[in-house]
């Protein structure tokens, strides 16, 4: 096919200028009026999640509270009843952040010291997670009978431990954005 070199089908100067102006206006608007973005482009940042976790554990770790209804980390773990704590964590977090709560502690099993874990919640993370932790110290005598820490053996002595033996617990809070 032979194409004739004619003056047909060419863009007029005015149309060219209008098109250029339109392109400039659109590109300017794209830059200037991009939607309001918080934090980085990936939404809630890992720093924010860590900060939520650290702050929440600090608020809940209130051993001076007179509260007897499992409202603090200490009372909830002593009594093995974390229902109120989970509700409180949910209340402090934004709606688009989910979490798992668990504890880790040392225990002698068959003469071998192992780190055991217990998860209070079993939510499935849907994005990358951030884990924060806080250490709590209990005397065995202060633990209720239904506490999972009541029969922990932290010294490895076969003939049982003093009820005043300290038990260190690592409370772990894992957070992620949903």
């Amino acid at each position, binding site marked *: 096919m032979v194409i004739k070199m004619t003056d047909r089908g060419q863009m007029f100067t005015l149309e060219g200028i209008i098109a250029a102006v339109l392109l400039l206006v659109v590109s300017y608007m794209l830059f200037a009026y991009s939607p309001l973005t918080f934090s*980085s482009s990936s939404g809630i940042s890992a*720093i*924010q999640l860590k*900060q*939520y976790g650290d702050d929440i554990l600090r608020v809940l770790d*209130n051993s001076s509270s007179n509260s007897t209804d499992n409202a603090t*980390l200490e009372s909830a773990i002593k009594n093995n009843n974390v229902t109120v704590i989970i509700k409180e964590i949910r*209340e*402090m977090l*934004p709606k688009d952040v989910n979490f798992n709560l668990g504890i880790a502690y040392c225990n002698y099993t068959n003469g071998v010291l192992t780190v055991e874990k217990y998860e209070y919640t079993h939510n499935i993370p849907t994005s990358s997670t951030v884990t924060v932790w806080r250490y709590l110290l209990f005397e065995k005598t202060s633990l209720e009978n239904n506490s999972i820490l009541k029969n922990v053996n932290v010294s490895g002595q076969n003939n049982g431990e003093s009820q005043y033996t300290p038990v260190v617990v690592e409370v772990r809070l894992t957070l992620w954005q949903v």
Partner: protein
Amino acid sequence: MPRTKLNSNKAQLSLDILIGLTVFMLAFVFILQYIPSNFITQENDVSLSSTAYRLAALLTESPGYWTNGTISGTDWENHWNNTVIVGLCVEDHPGMLSLKKINELQSKYEENKNEFLSTFSKMFGLKNYNYNISLQFPSSSLANTIYSRNNSGKILLRLGKPIPKYGNVVKLDRIVYLKNGLTIYNLTGKGNIVINATPPFGYFAIVITNRSVNGTPRIKVFVSSRFGNWGKPVFNIKPSKYPVTYNITNILNGNSTISTSGSSYIKINFHKYTGYAVYTNAGAYIAGRVVSKLVIYVW
């Protein structure tokens, strides 16, 4: 001016120009997508994020500092003219904020906003940034903002410039708790107490520690948007055991009179018992503490 013929086939776009424009647009979109996000926006985000983080950390984990050259201390709220840096936490208690420091900061801002912002920006190295700092309920969000208030209904902390609707803005939250965030009224004997408060309440409870000798204890709670116009009680009980705590937060927050009027009157009629009423509208009551959220925007 010559008239344009509608049936003329002149000045149409040729295939070459269409292809050229398509290639140009693809290249243009590619540049828009990659270059700003790789070199400009992320750098800006990092700078804003670190600034917001630093500001939040200093406010929530430091009590502040003042010095006049010979004497110094952390009670800057009593020495504003010699303040080096502001901090809101109680000394040695990071995360626990002092109401006295918060009130002083807000009142200094309200006294002279421009002068305050200039001083505050110098303290925190924010001369090239804009910011907005406020104290809100933990459940507060951008769509439904609930500011923390003191017991007379005044917003505890809200300072800085209005948050822009467009552009690159970084937000950082810190969960904090307030020292002495609860307001307590003694309800011993018999009588009435009227509280003028602004909803929503983070916590409102009536605690009965014991009954008085002789007589049947009784509590009635009334709500009104106008003083004296009480109507039927929203809570009415004759307790039979002691000590007992009645949490009436949800009753009050769910009351239509309270939810529709900005400021409300709550009357507690008490009879023949020993106890107290306790409430807060500074934040949620969690783990024996009044918990709020320090919200910082930087742009």
